[in-house]
């Protein structure tokens, strides 16, 4: 078990390393940031001075080492767009908004998907099941950004019930959360349904029924606990996916989180911020994958010995 965890941690570190190299490399490719910063009339000595100040005269691998050491300490330099603010500070400022959105989306998708999945399994081949299949199919085919726009149009423009952008109370949170969680509802529901179908055939279920335990207890208390293993690990994966999904959702609803930050930064070629956000996201994403694998190995011993 220890060995498995060690191997996975190593893999994750390598993945983060690869991401950091990619981010670093790409930032340097697109041209000299000094040219962007200086006005045209600047003298050669100003140019040299700035180059030295930003450390751009050192060879690439040295720059990379500097980049990594600073990154570990959390220093990603200063934002080009919001002059004077450190990139990390901006990220920290926006992180709670994103976490709030992702957390709520996860909650909504769980609340919707699990009951429907259970019902679909229990009432197999009936209306519920058909409805579940339709939802699953739609969930996989709808583009997230379009769903957001459609929801916004229906509820904010046409009906006027909910606000269409910005962050605030619960009513601001609903539409973005539904948009973000939609895709996951389909996947979770499918998973819950197939797990439940497997469990419902087990011997202990028959025993429970013979014992006289009411059907609802058999289904919701006993079966769900056993069937819940697979979906539980899926939740951990979703946590990672949701974070990247926020990029699109936040753009559509102008939710002031990390996703919107990174898109704006890309548009204004604000490298330091892009680097900071991407590294943080990648870190969380890879961490979630790692947790999932460890959790899975903990629950299912066969995986550990691969």
């Amino acid at each position, binding site marked *: 078990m220890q060995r498995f965890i060690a191997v996975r941690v190593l893999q994750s570190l390598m993945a983060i390393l690869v991401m950091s190299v990619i981010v670093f490399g790409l930032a340097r490719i697109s041209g000299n940031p000094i040219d962007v910063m200086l006005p045209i009339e600047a003298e050669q000595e100003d140019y040299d001075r700035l180059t030295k100040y930003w450390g751009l005269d050192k060879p690439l691998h040295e720059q990379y080492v500097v980049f990594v050491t600073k990154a570990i300490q959390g220093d990603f330099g200063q934002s080009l767009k919001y002059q004077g603010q450190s990139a990390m500070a901006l990220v920290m400022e926006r992180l709670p908004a994103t976490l709030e959105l992702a957390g709520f989306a996860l909650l909504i998708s769980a609340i919707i998907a699990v009951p429907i999945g259970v019902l679909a399994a229990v009432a197999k081949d009936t209306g519920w099941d058909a409805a579940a299949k339709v939802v699953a199919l739609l969930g996989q085919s709808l583009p997230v950004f379009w769903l957001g726009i459609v929801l916004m149009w229906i509820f904010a423009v046409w009906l006027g019930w909910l606000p269409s952008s910005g962050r605030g109370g619960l009513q601001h949170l609903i539409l973005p959360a539904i948009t973000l969680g939609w895709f996951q509802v389909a996947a979770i529901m499918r998973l819950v349904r197939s797990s439940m179908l497997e469990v419902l055939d087990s011997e202990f279920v028959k025993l429970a029924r013979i014992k006289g335990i009411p059907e609802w207890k058999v289904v919701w208390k006993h079966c769900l606990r056993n069937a819940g293993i697979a979906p539980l690990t899926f939740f951990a994966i979703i946590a990672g996916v949701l974070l990247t999904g926020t990029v699109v959702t936040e753009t559509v609803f102008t939710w002031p989180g990390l996703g919107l930050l990174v898109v704006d930064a890309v548009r204004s070629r604000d490298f330091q911020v*892009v680097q900071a956000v991407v590294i943080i996201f*990648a870190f969380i994403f890879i961490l979630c994958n790692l947790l999932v694998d460890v959790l899975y190995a903990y629950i299912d011993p066969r995986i550990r010995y691969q």
Partner: protein
Amino acid sequence: MPQLTSTRTLPWYAIPWVVDGWRQVKRYPLFSLAILIFVLVIPAMFAPWVAPHDPYLGFLSNRLTPPVWQDGGTMEHILGTDKLGRDILSRIIYGARVSLTVSLIAIFVGGIIGTVLGLISGYFGGKTDAVIMRLVDISLSLPTILLALVLVAAVGPSFGVVITVLIVLLWARYARLTRGETLAIKELDFIARGRVAGASHTRIMFKYIFPNVFNSLVVLATLQVGYVILLESTLSFLGAGLPRAEPAWGVMVADGRELIVTAWWVSMFPGLAIMLTVLALNLIGDWLRDHLDPKLRNL
């Protein structure tokens, strides 16, 4: 001699292939719906002949005309026009071309790279296998959209960027699948006989093993086209995909986003096009998978 009745004079509804076809339609209604939608996509490939207007040329005097069933709409622009006066219907038709082209190229190239690496990895095993599988794992754990955003921040949105990002993301699945199947096929007798007969490694990989893996690859590719189209349109929507001037569906939705209150049609129709296309592709992919290779259910 009495004239023998020709067996060809069956009424149309009794012709065997029509009867079989109808039975198929009744048994798999969803699949047939998918085929129907797909049939609508094919004309999109012949866009220049089908589209009523030029997708790039806009007449500002026509800007933001609503679709034909609302007041102010005309038959000239059935689905309305966008803020530069370009016809939405034509842009959607051309957009189908763009999306399909990008997706197919990405899947094709990614598939080739992945298959070759998978074959090598499975066949030779050992260190090569370990290295390639590490690469696969890392590749699968890279966050999609972020990678694209970073690339675009560096070089700006373009066809090349989108295709590159897609390839980097897609190859790993093919590699994994091919490697798995190669490992299984490698043990079979006919491979050993091939070696004994003097076949080189390359020959064995591509002429013996690959044809047996091909089926699964086709199914995987079909399953992925829908996903790739979604990915490409998402990137285009964010401005990290195809350039803003192209009539790509994602770009069109982005264009219409600010106008959602007044000119809802600019965003709605391209999005609808995306959804229907991906839906049809998913249905077809699922059907193919269920019928050709149920092993792939968990992919």
